[in-house]
């Protein structure tokens, strides 16, 4: 319960910062957003709609009260509600994040387990090197290299864009592969190290020795004893990785023109569309906090020694 309250407290802090975003911009945000398309009527309407003529505290209370009810204001650019714009983009980002996690887990579990089982061997060194490379590679560069190889040279995958899975599931998957791999490899690299050390630890445990002395098949020991025990902490770290993964999503969406929240936030920055930026940033941060909270609670559930 304390942990939940703490998360709510942090969320309030986050919302204040996000709210202040529009006020920290030097100059008049509405005037800046309208730019050359300025006309007095739209200007007044937008200002009033954004509540910018009210005292700061009143503005915040109004803003957060509407935000809680799902009203994040109106875009300075398109005139649509921010909520509808975000909802439209949310599935794409969730799909990308999910795809990336699948890539990361497959990579980490295979590489990490093999590396641990063959500790000190060439395979181990190669796996360690791959994970070191994966942590150091700029994701946007990797995205470009993948496009270069798989789209332009081999003509296997579409270079960019997003297709709704409802419209065409097959094309959706084709478009998803490269962005998901790009985002997933970075997280997968960090996870690989983690899986490797967890499996190494489990290998030295008594239950593994017992299983082995019982004459169980290596395969059974690996799946039933070692991986099962190594998996619990891995899931926790995966949860935490999900949050870092979101950071990668923003840039990779731009590289692949993936019509998600990251691209929306980026375009909002370029277009000085502050309400949209606020909405997207708030959602990302809230999601991060929620994932962290769930992971922490799960962890204390799995390991009763941890209490919040």
């Amino acid at each position: 319960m304390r942990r939940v309250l703490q998360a709510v407290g942090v969320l309030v802090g986050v919302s204040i910062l996000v709210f202040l975003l529009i006020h920290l911009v030097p100059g008049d945000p509405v005037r800046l957003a309208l730019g050359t398309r300025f006309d007095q009527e739209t200007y007044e309407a937008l200002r009033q709609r954004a509540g910018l003529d009210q005292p700061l505290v009143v503005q915040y209370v109004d803003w957060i009260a509407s935000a809680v009810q799902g009203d994040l204001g109106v875009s300075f650019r398109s005139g649509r509600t921010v909520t509808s714009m975000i909802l439209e983009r949310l599935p794409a980002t969730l799909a990308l994040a999910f795809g990336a996690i699948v890539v990361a887990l497959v990579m980490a579990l295979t590489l990490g387990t093999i590396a641990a089982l063959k500790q000190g061997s060439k395979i181990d060194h190669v796996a360690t090197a791959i994970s070191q490379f994966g942590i150091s590679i700029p994701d946007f560069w990797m995205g470009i290299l993948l496009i270069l190889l798989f789209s332009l040279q081999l003509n296997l995958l579409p270079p960019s864009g997003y297709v709704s899975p409802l419209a065409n599931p097959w094309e959706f998957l084709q478009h998803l592969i490269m962005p998901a791999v790009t985002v997933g490899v970075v997280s997968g690299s960090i996870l690989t190290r983690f899986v490797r050390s967890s499996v190494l630890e489990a290998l030295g445990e008594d239950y593994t020795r017992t299983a082995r002395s019982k004459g169980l098949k290596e395969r059974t020991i690996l799946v039933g004893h070692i991986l099962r025990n190594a998996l619990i902490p891995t899931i926790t770290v995966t949860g935490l990785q999900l949050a870092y993964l979101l950071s990668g999503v923003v840039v990779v969406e731009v590289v692949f023109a993936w019509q998600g929240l990251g691209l929306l936030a980026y375009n909002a920055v370029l277009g000085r569309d502050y309400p949209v930026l606020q909405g997207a940033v708030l959602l990302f941060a809230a999601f991060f906090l929620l994932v962290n909270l769930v992971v922490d609670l799960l962890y204390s559930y799995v390991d009763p020694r941890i209490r919040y």
Partner: protein
Amino acid sequence: MATDTTAATTEAGAPPAVDPRSRWRQILDLLVSNRLALFAMVVLGLVLLAAVFGPWLAPFGVNEVIVQDRLQAPGLDHIFGTDELGRDVFSRVLLGARASLVVGVVAVGISLTAGTLLGLIAGFYGGKTDDFIMRGMDVLFAFPAILMAIAVLAILGPGLVNAMIAIGIVYTPIFARITRGSVLSVREEVYVRAARSLGARDARLIGLHILPNVAAPIIVQTTISLAFAILSEAALSFLGLGVQPPAASWGRMLAEGRGFIQQAWWMAVFPGLAIFVTVLSFNLIGDALRDVLDPRQRSAIESRGLAG
């Protein structure tokens, strides 16, 4: 700087009692004996050389346009080829090192100073001060790194200096957390209590007795943060929010190269390679330093060595 603080510690009679110079010498020896770290230091030496002496080393000017040579593939005249305006990619990669290093170093300098200071205060005074500072850090931590930097740049406007500030803010909480954690573990050590009973003032206690003894994890984090900061700078410049033309920057070159990927793969490949190699080097040194400086980690490696 680090050597100075350690020297000061020994004068003041606080542990460790080893001659500080030999301690740093020892660390250096260990680093040199690690082949990967040695390789990384050589690479970083070259990058530093390019950053400082780039204008004299580069065969062509950074914005020297040779129209008849535009989009030339790598060859004898232009070993990394030329871009769409006929500028030499190799020269631009050399000169791009400066922007990357300067932004990386200054940004980490900001996070290091602010984060360490906040962490020291939070850990040393505890109670309400601690709560206030660390909850604030939690709030900053809740934003995905790149998105936070983008939001800061949306307020400040794009540019080199603002990118440093943005990245500096993003990585402050990590330093605060690490410092605070270490301070908590040494705060009640005998030598701190002894110094306090001798009537040492808070500033003296923190600066002379606590800081030198929490330095190791901070140094490791600094190296790793340099890697992240350079990645972030590249990402921001890639998005057009960091270093502005006509200055050369790796991220910016990648963004430009992306548009010509079909005709000129070298425009995107070489700047990305430069980012990758630089970041990899910082990570390798960070790992090696952790092995040497962080005793817990070291024992983990030793025990692993014994197990294998």
